[in-house]
């Protein structure tokens, strides 16, 4: 049979009837916390990796100098440098589109002394310092932005996500343990006559604890079976969103096989926590009564 049970204790005991539902909710919340954390860590990691390979060169506008000629020279220098995989000047319409959220679509934008921007994709392991020195030497005033600030923020978000996720799982586990202790004590109390009889017949405390452990193992398995249904639905929804939705946020949420394995940990942990919390609670309670 799928759900294990004690052969001596009743099928249902006072104080533990609703425990499968509580465990199911805890399993769902813990899985969600892990999946959410992993998705955020994955997305920020991907962003950080992309930023590692991208730099932007800003060339200030100078009066009386043709910006097209300058950009052409900058592109020439960049494309000749061994650290650069490719370089691309950002065209005027693209620049206007970038500024539109702040300045609107006014024609006056073209009159502003905006710097020229060049997107540069670096080769893996490319020497950024050498590129910076070369640009500064050839084009005084040109700046190379390596997006360090953004990258550091991404790493900080990833770190926070990891800690928040772990804290959530810890708090959920703690709440589950508290509820299981309460349910075990209530169940033990409801069976005090049977427990006394077992003792008089020659049962050790460890035998009584094993019976309660089996009973709560059954409760844990039942809770997990209920809880993994919404977890599976949520995972299916995430898979659907990440594979079909081209939106920039959801498009970046990718979960690897290992992530799904980690998300399966709460159900396994829930069964083990339920079983061992019940055993320890019974042993502690009975040792006080001895």
């Amino acid at each position: 049979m799928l759900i294990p049970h004690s052969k001596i204790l009743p099928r249902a005991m006072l104080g533990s009837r609703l425990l499968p539902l509580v465990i199911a909710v805890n399993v769902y919340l813990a899985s969600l916390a892990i999946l959410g954390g992993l998705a955020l860590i994955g997305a920020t990691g991907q962003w950080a990796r992309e930023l590692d390979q991208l730099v932007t060169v800003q060339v200030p506008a100078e009066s009386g100098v043709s910006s097209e000629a300058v950009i052409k020279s900058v592109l020439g220098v960049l494309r000749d440098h061994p650290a650069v995989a490719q370089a691309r000047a950002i065209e005027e319409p693209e620049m206007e589109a970038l500024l539109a959220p702040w300045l609107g679509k006014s024609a006056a934008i073209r009159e502003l002394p905006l710097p020229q921007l060049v997107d540069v994709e670096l080769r893996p392991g490319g020497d950024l310092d050498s590129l910076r020195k070369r640009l500064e030497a050839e084009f005084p005033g040109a700046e190379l932005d390596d997006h360090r600030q953004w990258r550091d923020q991404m790493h900080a978000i990833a770190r926070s996500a990891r800690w928040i996720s772990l804290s959530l799982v810890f708090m959920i586990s703690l709440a589950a343990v508290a509820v299981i202790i309460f349910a075990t004590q209530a169940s033990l109390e409801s069976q005090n006559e049977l427990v006394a009889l077992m003792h008089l017949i020659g049962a050790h405390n460890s035998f009584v604890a094993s019976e309660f452990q089996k009973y709560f193992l059954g409760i844990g398995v039942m809770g997990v079976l209920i809880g993994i249904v919404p977890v599976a639905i949520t995972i299916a929804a995430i898979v659907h969103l990440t594979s079909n939705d081209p939106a920039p946020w959801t498009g970046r949420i990718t979960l690897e096989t290992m992530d799904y394995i980690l998300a399966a940990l709460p159900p396994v942990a829930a069964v083990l926590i339920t079983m061992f919390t019940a055993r320890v609670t019974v042993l502690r309670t009975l040792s006080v009564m001895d």
Partner: protein
Amino acid sequence: MIRVKNIGLQYADGPEILSNISFTLAAGSFHFLTGRCGAGKSSLLRMLYLGHRPSRGLMEMFGKDISQLDASELPEIRRRVGVVFQDFRLVSHLTVFENVALPLAIEGRMEQEYKRDVVELLNWVGLGDKLDHYPALLSGGEQQQVAIARAVVASPQLLLADEPTGSVDAEIGERLLGLLIELNRQGATLVIATHDTGLLERHRYHAGELHLEDGGRLRQLPPVRAKAI
């Protein structure tokens, strides 16, 4: 096998219920535990099945001083004692078979090991056709038979019965008593607590008596010798 010397029993800070009790139970002997209602028969039995340890004095069971034993050592002694409780104490959610097999399950034995023995025992007490019945479906006498079967299934060396015929009619009472005496003949030491003087009279030639007097003291009497004709 059982040696009790000057033991006393009190619950919490209450008065001493049993005082300076001394007796010896030889292996394979048969005793009635008698006394007025409230004299302490059930308390003395409770001490013998280690439901409560004496407050003072020496109690030696199977060669071990009970007062010196750690709580974790008591189960091994309890497994050598079979008890027929006055209120049966059958487990309502277990079947007749499961109730009787409980001591064996507690010993850690597998069902396939003991199934045949338990069925045989239930046949012997006359409940072979009610293995799967729950206690609520049994009569008082049948419940008592299940309680006796449970008490003896693990072949205890000491068998204690608290008013085993108290809640059944005379015919069934004699039959139950016959079962207990048969187990005594097979080697178990038997102590039956009763206030049924008729019962005592019928068996006084082969059973000794532990008589609890007012004030919680005990007098041990040997079996009455049959008069030579």
